[in-house]
């Protein structure tokens, strides 16, 4: 076990997969010589060679279409989109091509591309370095969607994503690269000493589709993913309510059994994400929870989300769900 931050554990996962499988090839904007603007691929080109880890033209559509073709012809590309906000020039390639190739070819072709992309707010990134566009991909049949939250699950999930023969959109909460985020911008802890930052050096994987029980309690089920998991942890502590905290880890396919089991116990549910509310993945969960747990629910399901507005720059802390909004929702769930 080594203490790693999320950059290091992701780098370690890529390193292992490059080592284990000749077909793994890592590329994207600034990922080669420089090692990525967030340093996630640092040292990998020097270690594995220029033909394995390299820079691409500044062209997300180009990156995704090339990756699609490589995947079709026996490689296992892992590409980086520098910010999730910049995935949209590649949206057609992902939604209409990558997601559908297996089905449209009657299973004759597939392309096992992994798209890594830093997402989410909290770094004063304004409109275009802060968005969390997961639901724009969960709404696309044929894609798996993962969203890590800690150094430990980042590595295990990324290895599963790369090994998966289906395309995976892999979101990384950039605010948590170097430390957990508890919702207070002035509190900037590192991953040092955090139990979820104890990472085995060897290969391990976390199956796509399995949630993680981050906290255990009796009176409310709080569900989240990405950076918000840590903000929820803070909110639960602040609220004084005994809660299960479910870190979904994978959004498609999501771990419905874990959610149902918890709500059958607690009877109450709060769903938290930083993406806007309308058509956010929380909406899908609310619908499924009421289908499955209607007779167990003691109070209305609460959603705490980003507002239905563009992500602001100066006022980002009024936008992102913070511990007090979440704690208030937990308290509301306890009434009745």
């Amino acid at each position, binding site marked *: 076990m080594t203490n790693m931050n999320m950059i290091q554990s992701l780098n370690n996962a890529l390193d292992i997969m490059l080592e284990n499988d000749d077909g793994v090839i890592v590329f994207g*904007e*600034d990922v*080669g*010589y*420089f090692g990525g*603007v967030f340093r996630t691929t640092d040292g990998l080109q020097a270690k594995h060679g*220029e*033909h394995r880890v*390299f*820079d*691409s*033209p*500044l*062209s*997300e*559509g*180009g990156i995704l279409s090339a990756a699609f073709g490589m995947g079709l012809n026996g490689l296992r590309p892992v590409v980086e989109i520098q910010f999730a*906000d*910049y995935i*949209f*020039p590649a949206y057609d390639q992902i939604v209409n091509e990558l997601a559908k190739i297996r089905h449209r070819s009657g299973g004759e072709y597939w392309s096992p591309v992994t798209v890594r992309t830093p997402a989410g707010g909290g770094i*004063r*990134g*304004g*409109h*275009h*370095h802060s968005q969390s566009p997961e639901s724009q991909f969960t709404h696309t049949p044929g894609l798996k969607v993962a969203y890590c939250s800690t150094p430990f699950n980042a590595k295990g999930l990324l290895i599963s994503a790369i090994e998966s023969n289906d395309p995976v959109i892999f979101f990384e909460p950039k605010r948590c690269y170097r430390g957990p985020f508890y919702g207070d911008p002035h509190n900037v802890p590192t991953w040092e000493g955090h139990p979820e930052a104890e990472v085995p050096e060897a290969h391990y994987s976390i199956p796509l589709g399995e949630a993680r029980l981050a906290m255990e309690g009796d009176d409310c089920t709080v569900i989240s993913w990405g950076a918000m998991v840590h903000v929820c942890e803070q909110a639960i502590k602040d609220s004084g309510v005994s809660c299960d905290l479910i870190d979904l880890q994978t959004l498609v396919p999501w771990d419905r059994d874990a959610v149902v089991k918890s709500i059958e116990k607690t009877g109450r549910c709060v769903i938290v994400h930083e993406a806007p*509310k*309308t058509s956010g993945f929380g909406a899908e969960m609310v619908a499924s929870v009421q289908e499955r747990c209607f007779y167990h629910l003691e109070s209305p399901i609460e959603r705490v989300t980003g*507002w*239905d*507005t*563009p992500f*602001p*720059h*100066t*006022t980002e802390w*009024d*936008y992102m769900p913070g511990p*007090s*909004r979440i704690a*208030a929702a937990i308290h509301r769930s306890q009434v009745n």
Partner: protein
Amino acid sequence: MAKKKPSLKIPDAPHRPGDEASFESWPWQPGDLKMPDPKNCSSEDTVPHAAGLIRVLGDDNKASGDWDPGLDADDLRLGLEYMVRLRIFDDRMMKMQRTGKLSFYMRSFGEECVAIAQTMALETQDWIFPTYRQPGAQFVRGRDMVSMICHCIGNVEDNIKGRQMPVHYSYREGRFISISSPVGTQFSQAVGVAMASQYRGLDEVTITWIGDGASAEGDYHYALNFASVYKAPVILNVVNNQWAISTHANFATGGGEFASRGLPYGLASLRVDGNDFLALYSATKWARQRAAAGAGATHIEVLTYRAGAHSSSDDPSRYRPGDEHTKWPGGDPVERLRDHLIEIGEWSDEKHIELEKRIDDEVMSAYKEAVSHGDLATGPYPSSDTIFTEVYQEMPWHLEEQFNEMMEESDD
């Protein structure tokens, strides 16, 4: 199937940290290229201009050749003043960023000439569709520095209400269109702006820029094609400053050619020394005449070098030699115009130092006034309702509801 040794070909940058940076000196001289008639020439007539380099200022600091715009000394001094202003302004903003008064910053260092010479060559009704590397155009269009700094801070006086990151200016009064982070998008949008001018019968030309890196985006190719198909009155500039963050221009095109890529689209295509104020002014004026005459768009490669870091988040010494910019054959745009003015007896070192001092004072007092409206570290900030306003023309019920929810929670 026979298996060959893996052999994917990956380009590299000319120099990396630890290398001795050196560039071949340019074979092109002022006077090499004739100026074709902008209103009547064809795309083929510009083949030599795309392969060569339009220069006016020689190594002797003298202006010569067909492309000499014959500007009078007052205009040259004005151009110099704008460039000096931009450089000093950028340095002050970078200091603000370093002390936590701004979240982020991007300088135009080494490329000050681009937006300034080119905007000066236009008419005031012309549209400017910039990237984050052309804020200098706003000086030419008369924007007040206090207002620019307030935007960068994102304080209560920011005209875009703290919504975007610093350097994402919008300045409607100067027909300077709102800057967006996703690179390349403006390039093809500018063609639409130009098509609207044409449709409405207005004497307006649109100018836009894209980086060498961003020219790999689809938007670049959409722009060239639409501009060519509709003969739009637009000036399409590729600012080849050699770098896209850590990625060298060698990754943007296989053959290292930018200017000539306009030719197969049927566009007049020029390569211009981007640190030569006179050449850039002249080429832009030429392109404007062509566009206004209905002869179509011009595609210009502006050859320059990004002398500074990509942004305040970047450390270029990790991917290129620290002194690479000092070896650039095009030199420094401010020094070159200054030396030209001195050469023709219209300027002096003393005057230059005085100018720098005056501008430094002006920037300093603008800075003081701007922070009196709040800085990023301490506020006050734009009120939170700015998150919800102008998302739509009128606020729909669900935003109103969320706005009220936010206000109630901030009362608790």
